[in-house]
């Protein structure tokens, strides 16, 4: 089992009930870190095997694995 970061979008109909959606995600195994109400996104982490069960939570539109970004070294002439 491997732990992955996930970003979850809440559908338009549930943007006013972010807390309920977050609770549903927690019940489905996600550790919720941020509930971003303006953009309707919940971020956190879960076991990679649990991603598909998060998609089934009421109010969830999409679930994506979090990605990293990395700039070139700061002394690089190309940024």
């Amino acid at each position, binding site marked *: 089992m491997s732990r992955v*970061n996930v*970003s*979850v*979008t809440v559908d338009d109909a549930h943007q006013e009930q972010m807390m309920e959606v977050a609770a549903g995600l927690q019940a489905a195994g996600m550790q919720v*870190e*941020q509930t*971003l*109400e*303006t*953009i*309707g*996104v919940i*971020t956190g982490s879960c076991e990679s095997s649990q991603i598909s069960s998060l998609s089934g939570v009421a109010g969830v*539109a*999409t679930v*994506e694995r*979090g*990605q*990293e*970004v*990395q*700039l*070139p*070294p*700061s002394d*690089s*002439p*190309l*940024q």
Partner: protein
Amino acid sequence: MADHLTPTIAEPETTGRYLVLLREDAVETAVQALSESVSLNLCSSEIAQSHNAVILNQLGVAVVEAAPEQLATMRISAEGNSAILAIEPEQIVYALPQLNLSADYLIGYRDAINHLVEKLLPTQQTALLQAIDEAESTWGLQATKVLNSCASGKGIKVAVLDTGFDLTHPDFIGRTVTSKSFISGEEVQDGNGHGTHCIGTACGSRRPTRLPRYGVAYNAEIYAGKVLSNQGSGSDSGILQGIEWAIASGCEIISMSLGSRTQVGSTYSQVYETVAQRALSRGTLIVAAAGNDSRRDTGIPSPVSRPANCPSILAVGALDSDSNIAYFSNRGINPDGGQVDIAGPGVNVYSSWPMPTQYQTISGTSMATPHVAGIAALHAEESGLRGQELWNLLVKTARRLALASEDVGAGIVQAP
């Protein structure tokens, strides 16, 4: 007196014959009418030919040799509900001249032209380089007409989500700066330089402590969100928190000189797309770097980075000072939204850098992006437009370039 200044318009040369258009369903009746008025002796065939007429049965056209009085009779027959629809003079046409040159001649010609170009090119390049005078302002501000603009970004909030900001930089003393770090254990203070450079381009001073001027929206309110560490690394979680903060703060523009490489054939992130749509609907435009993965010098363009590849995020490509696409700038290769929307100055861009270095010249779509963000602030101030309407205005006012739209979208961004 003849007016010798009036240009003469050559009358088309005619043959003395006439083209007669016959009604499609009444060719025989029409031919009969023609025969009576022009006294033709016709036979019926695919192309019937007599000494003074040709009937093209399939086309329903007759070519008729006729004297002026016969023409008048034909015209009368053409009136009313006639089987003859139209009559016009037959014109003489010529084949376009064909060059009949030998391969040896053409190769020699090509070699001579190549030789001439090689001899002239270094001189031309020197002339172009000398033509860009950066003593007063950077080439990027000149190429985007920022210097001529009356707008300053006043009343517009611009968020730059990056490595933070050098809050002690002398060029920003007295400016309204709101900042927040989304990197645990790190303050907003920029330990990298990338963020300070980007904020400098988007929002730098009209009168920096040392010339040249390098900043676009010098009266904009600066929102410095640190979503990348001093080592230049970050995650979706931090970036999304930064976007949330910027929108909740009422920023009209979010500049993101960040992203990760995508593969040919890959699609965009649904999460960022949804967020960007919600941002636009709240009047916030997200601008992001198309990415630097291409190596055009070796013939390899790469697709637009994530998240700039989202349809609702304005993706920015990089140009050099000769309005050529930068060798590293990514291309709109992938379908569904993965295009470059607009281009900005992104090669040898001079801007602010954390003290004590103070200034630095670097290249990248990271540098093109804050040019577009700053200019978006100028348009937002002047037009009052927000979100998708502001996007449309940026695209509409961009200057078209003689470059592929997959590389530069609508062209180079222009200030109002």
